[in-house]
């Protein structure tokens, strides 16, 4: 017994180590790391060299649920409310109606190819209906890509919010299959939907509010704040699920509130959650890889291929184009969002539901779903980054905020002290302090030079290796990064090639610009400024990276804040 425990610990830790080592490989191959974790699990399993027999569906389900809850909490914290401006409505449309359409079409195809009753087919459709954000963004960041905000925000919010919908559809369809009553299915589903989302929504918002108050009121040892956040989130998750609401929606909302409100030790909480989310991904995929019997997948290969093809080539595109109809997204972005219906862990976890409720064909649900997820990770996962480049949906990544040291001032949740080292060759190098282009809300506290503390006088000239201490509002540090990074960074060079060498004011008249470069202006754009021209020709809500070609010059939206264009890049073609 004692030996068995140590063996288990050794085994888990070893598989974890292999998975961590393999993430480096994932970036080099451009393959989704999730795919590699799954493969490690499969290799360790009964058909691979590992030979481990694992078929404990209950444990896999438990681990999967905890992992999903953590991943959603982390996902909520990463979602910036500012991205709601362009992404919220299309994302919610995709997350509700979109999931229903996708599941419906896949369900029809599944019922036909497997020769099942319609309801069973629809259940399979619901199981594979949701997309996985972590997979998408992991891949894009791994390839050094930053998506334009409109597509990025839409995908991010969609994948955060569509899991509750898929889970709801699955659980409801299971209930219908189990019950014998022949009442009105539509009404029953709608009521169930309202209950799940209503409870989930209320619990999430109330829980998030309460957690924020707790974090700011309580005096605890510093290490306990992140743990408080995680345990509180899981508490609400469990409670909501028990009460018949969607715990997944609740915990996502808690994360969302936490990440976008002033909270003590937010940075610490982010760090812990970041780590836990990785652990959850690794653990969950390893376990699911172990759970499956790869050789049994061959039995369902043909129907699974058909279902996967229907999902990727028909169902998802139809759902995306239908749901995005009112939002007039550029065609390229709709194509991209259609292709990026990447499947992750959620479908595999949902495929365990039929097992747990002891349905017939329960093995087939699991095998088909597993196969579809594998195919999706391979085909879609591998092609996302090249496709984003091809469709010109990438923008230069923001300058990485490295080497700043943040100190939270207890009791002052919306301000923090940041210390930046001045690097030789960075824009901040060789400025006199008074001319340093800092936002008004940022105050200079002092300059540390070797072992002296210098008063922040306006005529003090910064030198390399100085450390500049600033008092900033908590959200301002992103904008400061560019000032202190060493130039020219790769991203700076990319950005000059991307936005063009020159920068224009958005309130400049389009006619004046055309006159300056000898371009014939369109008559219907006469008298408009660049902001209005971009909004009319590209999208009513522009995002950074939107571009408009006029004759042989090109306008590129370069900087935005609060929905307004601040700078327009001018590119010469």
């Amino acid at each position, binding site marked *: 017994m004692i030996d068995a425990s140590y063996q288990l610990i050794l085994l888990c830790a070893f598989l974890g180590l292999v998975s961590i080592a393999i993430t480096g490989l994932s970036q080099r191959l451009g393959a989704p790391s999730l795919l590699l974790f799954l493969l490690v699990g499969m290799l360790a399993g009964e058909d691979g060299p590992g030979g481990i027999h694992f078929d404990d569906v209950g444990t896999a389900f438990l681990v999967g649920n905890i992992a999903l809850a953590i991943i959603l909490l982390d996902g909520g914290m990463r979602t910036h409310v500012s991205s709601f401006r362009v992404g919220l409505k299309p994302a919610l449309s995709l997350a509700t109606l979109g999931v229903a359409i996708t599941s419906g079409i896949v369900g029809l195809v599944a019922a036909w190819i497997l020769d099942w009753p319609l309801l069973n087919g629809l259940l399979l459709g619901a199981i594979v209906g949701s997309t996985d954000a972590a997979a998408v963004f992991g891949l894009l960041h791994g390839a050094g890509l930053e998506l334009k905000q409109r597509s990025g925000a839409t995908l991010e919010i969609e994948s955060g919010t569509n899991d509750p919908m898929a889970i709801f559809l699955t659980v409801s369809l299971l209930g219908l299959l189990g019950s014998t009553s022949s009442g009105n299915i539509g009404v029953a589903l709608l009521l169930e939907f309202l209950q799940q989302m209503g409870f989930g929504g209320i619990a999430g918002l109330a829980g998030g509010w309460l957690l924020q108050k707790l974090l700011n009121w309580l005096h605890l040892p510093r290490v306990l704040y992140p743990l408080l956040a995680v345990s509180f989130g899981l508490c609400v998750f469990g409670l909501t699920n028990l009460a018949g609401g969607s715990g997944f929606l609740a915990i996502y909302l808690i994360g969302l509130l936490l990440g976008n409100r002033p909270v003590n030790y937010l940075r610490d909480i982010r760090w812990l959650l970041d780590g836990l989310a990785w652990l959850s991904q690794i653990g969950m995929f390893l376990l699911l890889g172990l759970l499956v019997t790869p050789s049994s997948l061959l039995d369902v290969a043909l129907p699974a291929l058909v279902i996967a093809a229907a999902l990727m080539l028909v169902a998802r595109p139809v759902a995306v184009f239908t749901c995005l109809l009112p939002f007039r997204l550029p065609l390229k972005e709709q194509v991209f969002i259609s292709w990026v219906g990447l499947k992750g862990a959620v479908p595999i976890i949902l495929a365990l539901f039929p097992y747990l409720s002891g349905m017939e064909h329960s093995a087939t649900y699991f095998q088909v779903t597993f196969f579809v997820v594998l195919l999706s990770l391979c085909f879609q996962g591998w092609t996302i980054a090249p496709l984003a480049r091809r469709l010109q949906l990438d923008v230069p990544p923001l300058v990485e905020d490295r080497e700043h040291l943040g100190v939270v001032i207890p009791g002052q949740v919306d301000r923090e002290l940041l210390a930046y080292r001045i690097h030789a060759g960075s*824009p901040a190098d060789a400025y006199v302090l008074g*001319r340093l*282009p800092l936002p008004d809300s940022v105050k200079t506290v002092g300059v540390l030079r070797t072992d002296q503390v210098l008063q922040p006088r306006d005529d003090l000239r910064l030198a390399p290796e100085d450390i500049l201490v600033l008092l900033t509002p908590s959200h301002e540090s992103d904008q400061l990064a560019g000032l202190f990074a060493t*130039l*020219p960074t790769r991203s700076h*060079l990319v950005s*000059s090639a991307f936005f063009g*060498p*020159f*920068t*224009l*004011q958005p309130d*400049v008249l389009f006619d*004046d*610009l055309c006159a*300056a*470069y*000898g*371009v014939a202006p369109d008559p219907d754009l006469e008298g408009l400024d660049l902001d209005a021209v971009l909004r009319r020709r590209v999208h009513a809500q522009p995002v950074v990276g939107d571009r408009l070609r006029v004759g*042989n*010059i090109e306008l590129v939206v370069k900087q935005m804040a609060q929905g307004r264009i601040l*700078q*327009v890049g*001018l590119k*010469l*073609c």
Partner: protein
Amino acid sequence: MQTLTQILSPGRTICRAPGGSKKRLFETIARIISEDQLSLPYAEVFTQLIAREKLGSTGLGQGIAIPHCRIPNCSQPLGTLLSVDEPVDFDAPDNQPVDLLFVLLVPQEAHQEHLDILSHVAGLFSQTEFCQALRAAGDNQALYDIATGWKS
């Protein structure tokens, strides 16, 4: 592609010109060009360059600016190169003061060729090594030699 040799002349290459303000700098530029090219009056050059500047600063960032405009009575693209003794506030996108300028005047008639030259010059001046070399030049002739002899 024309190189700097074809659009620059030693008479329009000034090392360590007096800075002062952005307006003073454009006055200096207009004077240099109008004295070098008799067909281009001082007022015309000054007005056209300032008019382009109103659309947005021609500063590229990192102390570099490339003021440019189309101009009547100009038969071929004209370059003017200046380094400035004391960096001048130029409303550049990165807020850094400017100490190295390449002014490009092109004929009124629009040509793809002119945009290509502008693009080429912008690319050249985004190379840190090139700009460092120009900043290190001690007199007009050295500045001209470095600019025209540069192999990128």
